[in-house]
């Protein structure tokens, strides 16, 4: 699905990593942990071609990301659902319109009608469809972001701290949604600080836990 091979990236003179490799196989479930500033969000952005690697190769669905033009990147994004920590909604559109946005931009708005209500009910937002994003709580926004990420049935779901702004109960609910998606065959990559969520998930899904620290991506082990 997505492969990073000896990838380097940094900001200014500050190199975050210089030879980082990662493979997201179809149907796999990955947690990405590490201290703040280690480069987790940067790594995720490289995975959906929001950033271009300074060195090394990023392959999206077998294609070299560096060789993709902007339209090809857009096409790849339609196969990757992204959940941001700050959700990234268009505040002038209703929650239903925001969730349907991936269908709208790909010219499939007519498909939204049937799927949308089902999806809203699935994430527990059936009653909030017409509300604007600022009117929702943090947890509701996170669930809406997850609904938007999955509405086009992407192959990969990338989530950056999806439980960062929600309480434990809501984080469990979001996690169970992601596990459910993984069981449907979706590849999942979640960046999180929340070790309790990782422990909870390991009982339900075969997840690989990666730790990014000092520019190195390591398999986390027994400490979890």
């Amino acid at each position: 699905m997505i492969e990073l091979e000896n990838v380097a990236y940094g900001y200014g003179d500050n190199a975050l990593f210089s030879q980082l490799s990662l493979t997201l196989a179809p149907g796999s479930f990955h947690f990405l942990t590490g201290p703040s500033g280690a480069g987790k969000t940067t790594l995720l952005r490289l995975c959906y071609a929001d950033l271009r690697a300074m060195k090394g190769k990023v392959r999206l669905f077998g294609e070299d990301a560096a060789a993709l033009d902007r339209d090809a990147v857009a096409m790849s994004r339609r196969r990757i659902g992204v959940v941001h920590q700050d959700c990234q909604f268009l505040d002038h559109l209703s929650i239903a319109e925001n969730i349907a946005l991936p269908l709208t931009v790909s010219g499939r708005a007519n498909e939204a009608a049937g799927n949308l209500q089902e999806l809203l009910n699935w994430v527990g937002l059936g009653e909030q469809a017409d509300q604007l994003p600022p009117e929702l709580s943090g947890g509701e926004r996170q669930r809406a972001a997850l609904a938007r990420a999955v509405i086009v049935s992407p192959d990969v779901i990338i989530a950056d701290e999806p439980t960062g702004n929600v309480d434990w109960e809501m984080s469990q609910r979001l996690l169970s949604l992601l596990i459910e998606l993984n069981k449907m065959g979706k590849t999942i990559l979640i960046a999180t600080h929340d070790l309790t969520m990782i422990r909870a998930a390991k009982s339900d899904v075969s997840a690989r836990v990666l730790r990014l620290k000092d520019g190195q991506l390591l398999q986390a082990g027994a400490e979890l």
Partner: protein
Amino acid sequence: MKALLDLLFGDPQADRSVPQTGTTARLTVFVAAVMAFLAVIALAVSLTTNRVASLWAEELAQSATLRLPADPANADALLLAALDVLETTPGVSRVRALSQDEQKALLEPWFGPDLPLDALPMPQLIEVVAGGDGYDAEGLRARLSAQVPGAILDDHTAWREPLLEAASRVRLIGWTVIILIGATVAAMITLAAQASLAANVRVISVLRLVGAKDAYIARAFVRRFTLRAGGGAIVGTLFGVIVVSLMPKGDASGSLLMGVGFEGAEWLWPLLIPLLAAIVAFFATRAAAFRRLKEQT
């Protein structure tokens, strides 16, 4: 045709992706309206100049004046000889010797109404009107110099050429003004589009996150600015046409200052202004949008 229909009717859902920005919307409509109004006035001046210049050129090209020497002793003989030459010249359709009263009227603006014309040796003037393809002026001059010595044929070339040159320059200035108005509209729309794109960086970022192609994002801005410019230009053109239609009409002599306006099919020309404004806005916004989207990669 599909592109035109898309532009006119668009995709309401896609249009809603980009929030309405009141200031740039009002600014675009206002600028387009003002520029369209000025374009109508410039067009009216240009077309009027064209029409009046054509009228003058036609009138002056058709007529000439033959001036006989002021020789009271041989005046009748000279007149008869000149009329004989003129009437036998191919291409001359009509000749007419001006009466004393007509000649007096011509001199009156310079010498006043009490001019004692009888006491002055006045040259006789003959009006020569060409017909068909006209006559050979050089050949006529040669025959006149042989049969009516001292007669001078003035075919108005000396008058006509500077007039036509002046009219041509006024026309050129009119079209230059219209082109400059078009360029100003393009510049203003580009600035407004750039401001709108800059104010919507986050919107563009979200649209890209969910897989929107550049063409989709650009279309939302292009359609909006094209319709605003076209709508504003319709209002400005309407006002311009009303103002032109209220201007005082010229007299039959074709006075330029008194006759600015449209005649007949010329009234259709202003209809092109909103269309051109929309086309200019379309390409200006499209260029600005794609440039911005390329920079925001």
